[in-house]
């Protein structure tokens, strides 16, 4: 059951479009949206010539950062005034840590976090938030496109199935949050050995989903030259799925693997929200 959504205000240009989608999802589920603006400041650093910046400069910087954050908070409050109290805008005065990690801690008090799909010049910021939320919050992350989405109440989900603990978590999180009506379990290039998918890729998880009274269908595909992400996105479009569910970054891989791979590829040309869990 979706009750609380968390939206970190990253400062990226995509914030405005994404928070709009987050607010519509919240209202579709009768949930509350909490958006938090970070007010990060630099910690003083010990260097051979003393501590920089000095306390006077530091105080000035803190003031500046806080007033910026406050301005941003006020403008969001004005924009979402009609939605109160279902929409709450907060500030996170975090003086010592990276804002992404600090906000990931706030995300623990919500059911799911929503962020914009990383793209363009703000891509790196969005990636930093995505990583922090995925790895540190203990909650799933919903990545939304910045273009209008097909639906804000998710009834038809497409599961990018791999027999990993991340994907398992993602599927169970999606079921608990959105109670979808139907699910298509898609195995792309499945390895059918005993300790991977097994002889019938997707059959076991489909049986389990059916126990949750979800109409379930299994599809196996060979990617044949296209990337996994391209196959998924094309299939989502064809079948009019309104949510993709995927495990974020397999645990055996280093975080640096983020520089490539299926999770990151999914962000290119994303036009359907994707729920990731780790």
């Amino acid at each position, binding site marked *: *059951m979706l*009750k*609380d959504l968390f939206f970190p205000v990253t400062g990226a240009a995509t914030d405005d479009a994404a928070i709009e989608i987050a607010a519509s999802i919240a209202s579709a589920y009768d949930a*509350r949206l909490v958006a938090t603006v970070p007010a990060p400041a630099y910690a003083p650093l010990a260097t051979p010539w003393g501590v920089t910046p000095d306390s006077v400069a530091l105080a000035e910087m803190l003031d500046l950062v806080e007033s910026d954050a406050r301005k941003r908070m006020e403008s969001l409050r004005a924009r979402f005034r009609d939605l109160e109290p279902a929409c709450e805008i907060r500030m996170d005065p*975090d*003086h*010592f*840590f990276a804002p992404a990690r*600090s906000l990931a*801690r706030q995300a*623990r*008090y*919500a*059911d799911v976090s929503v962020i914009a799909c990383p793209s363009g010049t703000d891509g790196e910021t969005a990636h930093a938030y995505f990583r922090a939320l995925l790895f*540190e*919050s*203990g*909650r799933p992350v919903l990545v939304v496109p910045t273009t209008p989405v097909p639906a804000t109440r998710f009834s038809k989900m497409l599961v990018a199935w791999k*027999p*990993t*603990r*991340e*994907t*398992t*978590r993602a599927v*169970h999180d999606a*079921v*608990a949050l959105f109670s979808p009506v139907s699910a298509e379990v898609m195995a792309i290039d499945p390895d059918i050995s*005993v*300790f991977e998918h097994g002889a019938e890729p997707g059959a*076991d*998880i489909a*049986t*389990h989903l059916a*126990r*949750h009274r979800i109409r379930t269908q299994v599809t196996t595909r060979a990617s044949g030259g296209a990337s996994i992400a391209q196959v998924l996105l094309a299939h989502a479009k064809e079948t009019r799925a309104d949510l993709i569910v995927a495990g974020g970054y397999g645990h055996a891989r280093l975080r640096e693997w983020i520089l490539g791979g299926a999770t990151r590829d999914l962000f290119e040309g994303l036009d359907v929200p994707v729920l990731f869990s780790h």
Partner: protein
Amino acid sequence: MLKDLFFPVTGASTDDATLAIAEQIAIAYRARLIVSVPAAVPTAVAAPWGFAPGPVLAQVLEEVERHAKRRAEELRARMAKSEAAWDVRVDRTRLFDPPEALTLQARYADLSVIAQPRGKDASAAHAYFEAFLFESGRPVMVVPADVAPRRFDKLLLAWKPTREAARAIHDALALFAPREVEVLVVDAEIGDLAHGDEPGADIAAHLAERGLKVNVTRRSSGTASVATMVRLHAAETGADLLVAGGYGHARLREWVLGGATRDLLESLDLPVLFSH
């Protein structure tokens, strides 16, 4: 909502008692109980004189499978009279790690149930606990041998501001739809990295948003262990289930040799739901 419950047959002497508890939970929630007997399949091992001979392996394999099938038949006979929906199956595992291999099957269930580590079977139970906690991607319920399981309507949350504890409480809400949560914070450290000014207040607000009856208690352990405090509080409040994050992520698995998770695991007299 709890629909599929997974029970790995570990071969420990506690299996029967634990199975009986898992069965009661399945009945209470109208869930299906999946009982999995591991058949540890030997693999060809490179030895100085080449690979171990095929015929010998085949013989061992046959023996292992026969044994597993016999155990599965016994369990089917036992479950035949059960009110619960059930399925008893034999799952092939690699020779040395039945716990890790069974976690693959646990992914297709909502929750796994294992016995509290105790006595001579403690190390086997620990191996299962760790494998399921870290690898299955699903929460693990650890049950003492002598509890009478009920529905889990009143939860005791051992709250720490960690991702594991956040996962655990959300998993518990999704599985059991409880009515009441008692949030217990022991030895709260107030600060940026730890709790805020009011330890437990944020998670309590989030729980209350869902219409749950919530109460927050802060305690300091003094000379007692955290596990002791939790045990006392559980008894005082009459909680049905303890919910806790299992092993903070910064710790090495070897830390398993000590610490609050292990204390909780071994000393409690009520079921515990752990997530990682």
